[in-house]
């Protein structure tokens, strides 16, 4: 179902907030019917990028087309063709789910004859048809998110933007949101652009872009990105970690480090390396485990830092600029 027709195209997209460069000239092509993941720590520029693609924020420089329309000069055409689910809820808590959706249908001028059917379809899709007459204030966080996804789909958009759709949800609900997104991709001719800072969630995407400090630092399929790291992770437990690290350095010329009580090192073809490790080390090895690289390792290999550390520093950086903070929050 995936085609080579682009649903989103960005060229040299830049956005500055005063002196702070939130997005530093990114290029990006998302194909029709893809699930495209946009990853990075909080404050990497993901929401700023999404806001520009959704016509909510004017780019400082560069251009972007969504569903074939320019985000600056054809704003209305873009808006008609996109659905949006924001990080923070934009539902009217004091109205029922159905009223929220009907209001959306009116704002988007959905043909009147089609409203009832479409409303039922999207609510059944997210399993909320039975709760349609409840006020949104009575909904759980996961239900609200599902309702927002239903609302985003009500006008049959060609591109659905999900900005951190799983943030603040428990792991089980996160999983169900994702399985729903996958089914949506199979059922409709829709392109899904999703941001997350949970690396494990990126596995659900067809392709992902990793963003850090306003730049896209890697863009490929999750498996290709992991393969690009090229190394597996070996963890051994020994009675003397310092000696083990020294011996690994001496015999294999490899850096190793202590992590949570064990010794950690990265090598290509980890399984083949394990026998050599046993043969060459004098220090006894109590246990060993080999793991394939995760997307966390991918992030680590491109940025030299873990995503958690990156979040700490960018939150600090953005914290000094109120405008940038506001754009993230709204």
């Amino acid at each position, binding site marked *: 179902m995936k085609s080579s027709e682009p649903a989103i195209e960005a060229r040299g997209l830049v956005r500055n907030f005063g002196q702070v460069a939130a997005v530093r000239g990114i290029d990006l092509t998302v194909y029709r019917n893809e699930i495209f993941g946009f990853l990075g720590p909080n404050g990497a520029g993901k929401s700023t990028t999404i806001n520009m693609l*959704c016509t909510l924020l004017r780019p400082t420089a560069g251009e972007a087309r969504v569903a074939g329309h320019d985000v600056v000069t054809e704003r209305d055409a873009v808006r008609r*063709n996109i659905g949006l689910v924001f990080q923070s809820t*934009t539902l009217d808590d004091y109205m029922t789910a159905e009223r929220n959706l009907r209001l959306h249908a*009116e704002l988007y001028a959905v043909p009147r004859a089609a409203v009832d059917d479409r409303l039922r379809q999207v609510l059944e899709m997210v399993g909320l048809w039975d709760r349609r007459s409840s006020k949104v204030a009575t909904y759980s966080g996961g239900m609200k998110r599902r309702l927002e996804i239903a609302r985003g789909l009500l006008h049959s958009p060609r591109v659905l933007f999900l900005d951190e759709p799983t943030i603040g949800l428990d792991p089980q609900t996160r999983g169900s949101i994702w399985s*729903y997104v996958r*089914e949506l991709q199979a059922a409709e001719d829709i392109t899904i652009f999703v941001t997350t800072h949970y690396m494990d969630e990126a596995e659900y995407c067809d392709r992902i872009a990793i963003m850090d400090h306003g730049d896209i630092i890697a863009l490929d399929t999750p498996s290709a990105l992991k393969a690009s790291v090229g190394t597996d992770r070996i963890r051994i437990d020994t009675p003397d970690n310092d000696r083990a690290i020294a011996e690994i350095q001496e015999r294999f010329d490899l850096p190793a480090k202590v992590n949570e009580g064990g010794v950690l090192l990265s090598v290509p073809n980890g399984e083949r390396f394990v026998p050599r490790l046993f043969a060459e080390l004098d220090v006894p090895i109590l246990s060993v485990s080999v793991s394939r690289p995760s997307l966390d390792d991918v992030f680590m290999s491109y940025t030299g830092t873990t995503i958690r550390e990156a979040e700490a520093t960018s939150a600090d950086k953005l914290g000094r600029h109120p405008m940038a903070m506001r754009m993230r929050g709204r």
Partner: protein
Amino acid sequence: MTMSSVVTAPVAAVRVPARSLAGELRAIKIVWQRDLIRFAEDRMRMVIMLVQPFIFLFVLGTGFQALTSRSTGGVDIRTFMFPGIVAMSLLFTSIFSAASIVWDREFGFLREMLVAPVWRGSIVIGKCLGGSTVAVLQGVLVVAVAGLVGVPYSPAMIIGVIALQLLLAFTLTSLGLMIAVRIKQIQSFMAINQMLVLPLYFTSGALFPVSHLPAWLAVLNRFDPLTYAIAPIRHVVFASLTISPAARQILDPGIMWGSWTVPTWLDAAIVFAIGVTVLAIAIIRFSRDD
């Protein structure tokens, strides 16, 4: 609740048409309806808004009565204050309704409207109509107590006052929206509100006749848009009273620009012109990009 079996059938796609006047009217209507639905479900707000004018009219008015019975030529001060209280009810309700756009921004819902493929002006106009409708609904309830303060229920009075209420509610809601559309926090709006509402109200002549004011206050009064709404309301109310010409001259003198008495139609036209102007400013401010 499991998500695995939720997709039962492929969903029929709908087509969103390009922006049209009909589409804008649908947007205006739904924004207006939302305000009415929210108001209908907010009983607390209705009660508070209703109680306030009656405190002014019956507590303050009755207190004043003891002081002023001689200077009003036998007219009950509450009768005199009645048009002012009608205006006050509209003032508070209209500005409060305009504040809802700030709430919507703070609680996120505004974004749902901002990303829709509609003209921003339609959202502002819908909000203006919603706020005006709610204000007039409250205003009508104030009109209903006219008999208690000695104003006879003549059809001319009722129709005239409600028509003027519609006009004033439109202007005041637009004024509130002009301020509210760029404000991010409800506290900021409330602060500006305090600075605006009471001076507007106290200089307007809602509570005193505007004919023999000291020069400085007369000047402030003539620049207060509310003055031009209260004078016609009072004129309509007093037309239904049987009182001495002397009392009428003191209590319902009309607005003087120098030695020229501004005709009632011009009062109304001034209020309308101000309303259209501030609404236009509200739309321009609301449409500006972040």
